[in-house]
């Protein structure tokens, strides 16, 4: 059999501590070297900051979003984006932006004609009390929102959907699914991949053959078809939380095999390296050798692979949701929000429904940049090559 060439990082050939060559004084830990390298990669740092902001917003979603995700207002269906004003009806400028209460009527062609009631302005306020939402994955309740307007008026920075729900709030809440699915999924795939790859590579023999065949089988099945078929097998009575985990497991199921194969290859090469030989000769149990010596040396690959795989999970979930296979309404995910925008009429008349796509785009790009930076930062070959 051949080793299919993979466009991956090769495992460090030496003990990680030795990497800090060219640095005078005490040897740096691999992590701090990586961090130092990463900091030089400015785009990756920007991406990291963007991601941190996104994850913070997602964790504090009930606080950051002006409305809970299911806060409907049927009078405000399809409210257009951005109703914040600084110039009032009389043409006076206000430093503090404000909104008007608005309502719509159908014209004969069933377009919504929006009119604003300019008699009273509702200024934008920070730390405003509003509808109670949840944050930290629903663990905490909060009635206070970072910003918002007073009750009869509603703030629609990115417009509203068919039930008058704020798209921006839903995007922020949608992060609960879309931002975590990659991490959870990669973690699952990584655990399976490490176990299978580790066993396969370290034990070898018949076990290796069987495991490799299983991996090949998983890699053989056409991904997207399998996703669709597997989604259809999820029982109907699941809650949206369970569907979420179902989707994660499905996504992990089709992607663990390639990880396992690569890790096996790395374990094979690490197994014969000096420090593992030394550990074995020192009488360490195989379990200890694998967990203490072999697997840790695959970690740098694992981290890079994870950051590069996360976008695939985000896209996989969104892709499935766009065609109606995923976490269902009213729980928001970026994919199922985009599903509403899929119809050309919706796109033409309510283009603000496409915003979740922008969120996907930004997240995926941030992860791509971060992954790129991490790859450079953790790649032992580039450490030496980098010019100071």
């Amino acid at each position, binding site marked *: 059999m051949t080793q299919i060439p993979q466009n991956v990082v090769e495992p460090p050939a030496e003990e990680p501590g030795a990497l800090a060559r060219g640095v005078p004084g005490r040897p740096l830990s691999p992590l701090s070297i990586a961090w130092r390298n990463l900091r030089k990669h400015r785009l990756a740092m920007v991406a990291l900051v963007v991601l941190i902001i996104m994850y913070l917003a997602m964790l504090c979603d009930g606080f950051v979003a002006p409305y809970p995700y299911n806060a409907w207002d049927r009078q405000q269906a399809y409210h*257009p984006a951005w109703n914040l004003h600084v110039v009032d009806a009389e043409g006076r400028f206000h430093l503090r932006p404000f909104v008007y209460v608005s309502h719509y009527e159908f014209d004969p062609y069933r377009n919504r004609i929006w009119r604003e009631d300019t008699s009273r302005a509702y200024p934008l306020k920070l730390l405003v009390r509003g509808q109670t939402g949840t944050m930290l994955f629903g663990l905490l309740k909060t009635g206070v929102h970072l910003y918002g307007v007073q009750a009869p008026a509603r703030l629609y920075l990115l417009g509203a959907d068919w039930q008058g729900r704020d798209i921006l709030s839903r995007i922020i809440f949608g992060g609960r699914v879309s931002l975590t699915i990659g991490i959870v999924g990669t973690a699952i795939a990584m655990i399976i991949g490490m176990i299978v790859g580790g066993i396969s590579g370290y034990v070898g023999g018949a076990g290796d053959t069987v495991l490799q065949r299983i991996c090949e089988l998983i890699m053989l099945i056409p991904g997207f078809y399998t996703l669709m078929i597997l989604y259809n097998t999820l029982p109907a009575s699941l809650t949206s939380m369970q569907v979420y985990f179902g989707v994660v497991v499905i996504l992990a199921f089709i992607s663990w095999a390639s990880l396992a194969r690569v890790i096996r290859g790395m374990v094979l090469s690490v197994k014969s390296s000096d420090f593992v030989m030394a550990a074995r000769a020192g009488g360490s149990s195989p379990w200890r050798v694998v967990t203490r010596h072999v697997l840790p040396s695959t970690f740098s690959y694992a981290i890079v692979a994870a950051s590069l795989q996360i976008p695939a999970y985000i896209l996989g979930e969104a892709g499935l949701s766009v065609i109606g296979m995923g976490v269902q309404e009213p729980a928001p995910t970026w994919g199922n929000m985009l599903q509403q925008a899929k119809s050309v009429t919706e796109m033409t008349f309510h283009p603000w429904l496409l915003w979740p796509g922008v969120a996907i785009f930004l997240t995926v790009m941030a992860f791509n940049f971060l992954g790129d930076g991490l790859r450079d930062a953790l790649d032992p070959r580039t450490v030496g090559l980098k010019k100071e």
Partner: protein
Amino acid sequence: MPKAITRALTVLSIVAVLVILWVILRSQTFGAGGVRPEVAGTVPAADYKPIVGTYGGRFVRATVSPPKSFNPVTSAETSTTEYTGYMYLGLTKTNPWTAEVQPELALSWTPDESGLVWTVKLRPGVVWSDGVPFTADDVLFTYDTTYNPKVSSSMRGIISGPKGERWKLEKVDDLTVRFTLFDRNAIFPLLIADSIIPKHTLEAVVKAGRFNEALGTSSSPDEMPVTGPFMFDNYDGSRVILKRNPHFYRLDAAGNRLPYLDEIVTIIVPDIDVQTLKFTSGETDILESVSGKDYPNIVRPREERTKKRPMQTAASRPTGSDFTVYRLGPSFGESFLVLNQNTGTNPKTHQPYVDPRKLAWFRDVRFRQAMSYLMDRKFMADGIYNGLSYPQYGPMSAHPDLPLAEANTVRFEYNLAKARALLAEMGLQDRNGDGWLEDANGLPVEFNLTTNVENEPRAKVAATMAQDMQKVGIHVNFRAMSFNTLITKLDYTYDWEACVMSLTGGPEPAWGADVWKSSGRLHMWFPRQPKPSTKWEVKKDKFFRLFHLWYPLQKKPSTKWEAEIDECFDKGIAELDPVKRKAIYARWQEIIAEQQPFIYTVTPENLMALRNRFGNVFPAPLGGVLHNIEEIYVKQGGSASQAAAQGQR
């Protein structure tokens, strides 16, 4: 510093993309100017006066799914009937305005005094498209085939009695058939509207036992002679082409043989959105079943296109807005909420299908009425269909023109307070001040609501009602599931609680016997009852005993209503006097409106759009735009090729 530049450029391009997206995503951005298409309604029946048209032209329509077969006996799905409806005529047809039964291949049908024997006189002079005359033998053959146990006929169950009784057909002469029925059947004239198939080509096929595969999509046109205005020409996987039947029996006022059109081309476009785009871009001539949601897009102003696209041929290519949108009144695809009232137990696990606590609510008419009060039909119309739909309160109320339509006396308009009051009367109220309802034992009021994922408007209707249920304090868990899963629950396992569905409806209630009679398999709230469930209040169940405290207090136990519905349908089908029939079905409607086994929501408006280049278009509320397809022609002043085609005739 190239690194800096690459960073700057990347950031710039991201910013540029975002700014562009911001500008275009902020608001409605389609261009002003251009012309809007016309909007029209239906034409009164009295104005139906077709004029003499001109020959030639093709008519392009789109459909969702490919045809599986052109066999009108074995397939009753839309994907078959949308073609066979043009190809095979029945003995009768329904009037597109009034739903009255009209002659087609039969000229008359008269019952004898018993109502069991019907004499059907056939139309003389009708020939199949291969020139063979149509006779009584074809009618006999069609019904023989339908009753043939080797043929997987979709109609057989409907025209057979409960013990397998069959209609007996006798040929009196070449143009007279005598039907002897096994019971009185008021809708007999409707039942014989089904397609008549040719004996001379299919007899051998039936004998060889291959009828189920006959008239398939790969059959050759020669194998399928027809009586209808169009005959099969070609199917290549993406387009079905029907061509003009030169032997169609009808003539126009000037004595020309109909139909006028040369071809009906049906292209298969699975996505409704793409169908819409194909219509507005001029590729297709008709847009059937427009959703109210897409209405603003269809009537939006469009620029007249002057430039030809490179691949356009001389064949007519209409420009932007040369079409008319027809608003045809309520359709028959209403969505309703149904609550599971099945008192049975699962034979395997000996568990009741429905939690007895919930079953008691679902079987309580006050609960169902409260649910009906929770239907925000106004928002369902506005938010889902852009206001283009009609509120519905009973099984037949939406369409004003139906012969059996009857204004329902009871209407449960959206009213949260009344819903709360009814629930409180049942003992379901907020007992601990948390905003959610509890029953007498302090247990929360909760149930699962479901619908199928595939139908977006229906899912939105369900989502809307779920919100209102939550608003009055019912913990309702809404989750849409796939159609197959849902049907399995409704049809086999019965382990569902509440569900939003719709059924293929029609102007004739008797068709719905399977839905309304308690023994029916589509009697969704409690299908296949051996007897109408009248015993349920006596059921000695430990949960039920708790409720006995208030059960006797109920004003009207109304346990017999299902039996009464059964009676309505049994009497209705046997009653040949239209006035009495109407009274019978009015009673049925009253019961349904009062008992709310199906809690109706809204009926979308039937919308169609058709190019203006066609003449003799008389939109009818029931028949739509194409009910007189044989008379529709391409108006003069079409493209050069059509003029040439007309010159050749």
